[in-house]
């Protein structure tokens, strides 16, 4: 077999190595955030179709109750993360800067927040199809950022045979330590999730890729690995964006996911450690996905921490729980600093895909003047999918979008930001590519 004949390389080509900044929180065990006064649950917090609200103002909800139902196959339900009363179903600030329908719940201060009796059945007695159905009802999505519904990933089409599951413990984004702490504090849960995935997919080979800057995670995962399963823990070279699934498959299996394709085209399914753990968690607790680990970090926040946060907690409440912001805090980013989005309104809530909140200071985000391209070629050496950002950038600045799509593979760009990161002339390349794709989508829609 192609993949196993070749030893795994432990690396992909190109990419960058930004300063890691992980020491701020990598040593801090995960602790629980107290329930806030209000929870806001946007109906759009996963890839696919937004959920449909099924509650109305005045309704009493307990912890774990469904407040919005899945709308179609590529969609997931959303559940109340705290007991309380629905006050409103209407527009609320979203992390992406827009407003989105959201269910607002005033948290009952007198509630014990005790979970209801098991909403999710135990998995051991279930057939694979029933496990997938339980995961679907649990509202589980990928926790690595993209928030892709997990039950879709666990239901590969018949004509795509799989022979390996790759578990993504890279966490290549600077600052974030969510997955790191998950592997150190809850390694058994991760392995439990792996066991469930193996049963569902009928795959008996698992590779866990962890970057070498997390030796404690590698050690804990090795110690706790079940003896009866073929689970291999692979230390990987520290390199951004290794956590991108195409790069990870290349690094651990030396298989190249085809352009425009998915890992299952080369017989692999990739799942982030947090997502794997949340599969196990819903069966362990009997509750759907209503909380997640979030890293609140950066030198602009007074007390950085790794927190278990109820989904729907406002970023404002989260930051206040971490001691508030310093006087020189300047930019608040949801997600890692390489691909995360700056937050304009702190009333926006934490969602299922929120990996971390990074607060940057004045000195961390100094304004940089853009210079003309000097064709140094550093962007070509950085691009992990081997595009030519130099030419793409030139075309984007001249609005030659069709050529970007037809001749220069702009749709293969992952918007990882490596080219922008290295550009000595500070040309916002990945931003230009994102804008070009929006323009291409628009012209296609009107054509």
């Amino acid at each position, binding site marked *: *077999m*192609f993949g196993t004949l070749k030893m795994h390389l432990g690396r992909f080509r190109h990419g*960058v190595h*930004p300063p890691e900044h992980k020491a701020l929180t990598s040593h801090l065990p995960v602790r629980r955030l107290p329930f806030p006064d209000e929870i806001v649950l946007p109906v759009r917090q996963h890839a696919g179709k937004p959920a449909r609200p099924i509650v109305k103002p005045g309704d009493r909800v307990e912890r774990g109750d469904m407040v919005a139902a899945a709308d179609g196959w590529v969609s997931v339900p959303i559940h109340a993360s705290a007991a309380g009363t629905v006050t409103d179903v209407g527009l609320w600030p979203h992390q992406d800067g827009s407003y989105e329908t959201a269910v607002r719940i005033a948290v009952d201060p007198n509630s014990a927040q005790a979970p209801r009796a098991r909403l999710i059945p135990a998995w051991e007695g279930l057939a694979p199809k029933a496990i997938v159905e339980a995961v679907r009802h649990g509202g589980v999505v990928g926790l690595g950022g993209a928030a892709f519904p997990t039950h879709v990933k666990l239901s590969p089409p018949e004509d795509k*045979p*799989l022979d390996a599951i790759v578990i993504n413990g890279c966490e290549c984004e*600077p600052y974030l330590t969510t997955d790191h702490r998950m592997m150190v504090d809850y390694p058994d849960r991760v392995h439990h999730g792996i066991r469930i995935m193996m049963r569902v997919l009928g795959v008996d080979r698992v590779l866990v890729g962890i970057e070498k800057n997390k030796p404690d995670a590698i050690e804990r995962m090795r110690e706790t690995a079940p003896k009866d399963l073929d689970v291999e823990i692979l230390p990987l070279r520290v390199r951004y964006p290794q956590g991108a699934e195409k790069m990870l498959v290349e690094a651990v299996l030396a*298989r*190249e*996911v*085809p*352009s*425009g*394709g998915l890992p299952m085209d080369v017989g692999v399914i990739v799942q982030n450690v947090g997502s794997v753990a949340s599969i196990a968690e819903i069966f362990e607790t009997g509750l759907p996905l209503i909380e997640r680990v979030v890293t609140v970090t950066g030198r602009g926040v007074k007390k950085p921490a790794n927190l278990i946060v109820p989904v729907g907690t406002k970023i*404002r409440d989260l930051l*206040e729980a971490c001691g*508030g*912001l310093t006087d020189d805090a*300047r*930019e*608040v980013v949801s997600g890692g*600093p*390489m691909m*995360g989005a*700056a937050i*304009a309104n*702190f009333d926006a809530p934490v969602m299922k895909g929120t990996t971390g909140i990074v607060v*940057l200071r004045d000195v*961390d*985000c100094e304004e*940089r003047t853009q*210079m*003309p*391209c*000097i*064709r*140094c*070629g550093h962007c070509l*050496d950085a691009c*992990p*999918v*081997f*595009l*030519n950002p*130099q*030419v793409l950038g030139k075309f984007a600045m001249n609005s030659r979008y069709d050529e970007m799509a037809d001749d220069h*593979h702009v749709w*293969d760009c992952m*918007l990882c*930001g490596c080219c*922008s*990161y*290295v550009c*000595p*002339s*500070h040309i*916002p390349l*990945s*931003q230009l590519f*994102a804008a070009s794709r929006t323009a291409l989508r628009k012209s296609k829609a009107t054509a």
Partner: protein
Amino acid sequence: MSTSRRWLVTASPHLGSPESTQRIMWSVIGSIVPICVAGIYFFGPSALLVLLAAVLGALVTERVFGKRGTLGDGSAVITGLLLGLTLPAGIPLWMAFVGSAFGIGFGKVIFGGLGQNPFNPALLGRAFLQAAFPAALTTWPTNTGADGTVFSHFRLDRLGEWAALRGDNFALPFMRPEVVDTTTSATPLGIAKFQGLEEVQKSGIEMSDLLLGSTGGCIGETAGVLILLCGGYLVLRNHMNWRIPVSIFVAVALLSGVFQLVDADKFSGPLTMLFSGGLMLGAVFMATDMVTSPVTHKGCWIFGIGIGALVVVIRYWGGLSEGVQYAILLMNAMVPFINRVTQPRVFGTRVQKVRVTA
């Protein structure tokens, strides 16, 4: 946490490498300075004057005709210094000034400034001077005194000879320069070209002279080893693509090695070829100009091999003793084409066979 504070909302990535175009330019300047110092050591105050005139010409042109605020990026200083280094020390200063003004004006500003020029501005300026004033550009002062012995090795009793001008640097524009009482000599390449290889041996030029720089030639092209060291510094800082000089050296060494085997009396060998004339300076500092060299690694190899081959052809069979500047300018013209045919293979476009055993 006050909401009245002004928060920054920018597109990702929110981190950037500390690299900047200005830093690249100024570190290139820093790596050229030792070569300038060596030039002054070998060719006296004349060299300093010529370098200053060339830099001044570049800066004035950039300021007057270029976009506002581009002086600080340092690129004009590089052009001026590099052009100065390729001139003989005895050249009238106004020529150096005009040469770099031409290089910046017609080599760079006219195309839209930094990053837009197809040709290396310093070499374009030099090509212009060579066409306009061929005699002035091929009069090479040496660093030997009237008695034929080298005086540049810091001997106080010969300081006067070192400090003497190596030509009529202060000649007025379009006036015939005065003949200054200084020693001039042909370069090793010139002797080999126009008098034959045996004359080179007779002239007493040793290999060590070529390596260390105590021969006749332009201000900055003689100290081969020093140029390599300065280039190495830039490679370590990732401000230079090492593939270009290496491929030039390999191409020149291989081709001249083959021709030496064919006829050792007619063709100079690899070491002489590498360390004489403008090859070192051209390969390390001119061909590697980021703006006018290919962006792909494969392209850099093709670019370098092309330059190396052209240098050998021009030096052996061309009408000039020296071929580096035209070799680089010709390959500069090829760069857009090289870039187009050496585009990287996009990830996931390989036709592969993965057999999944499920």
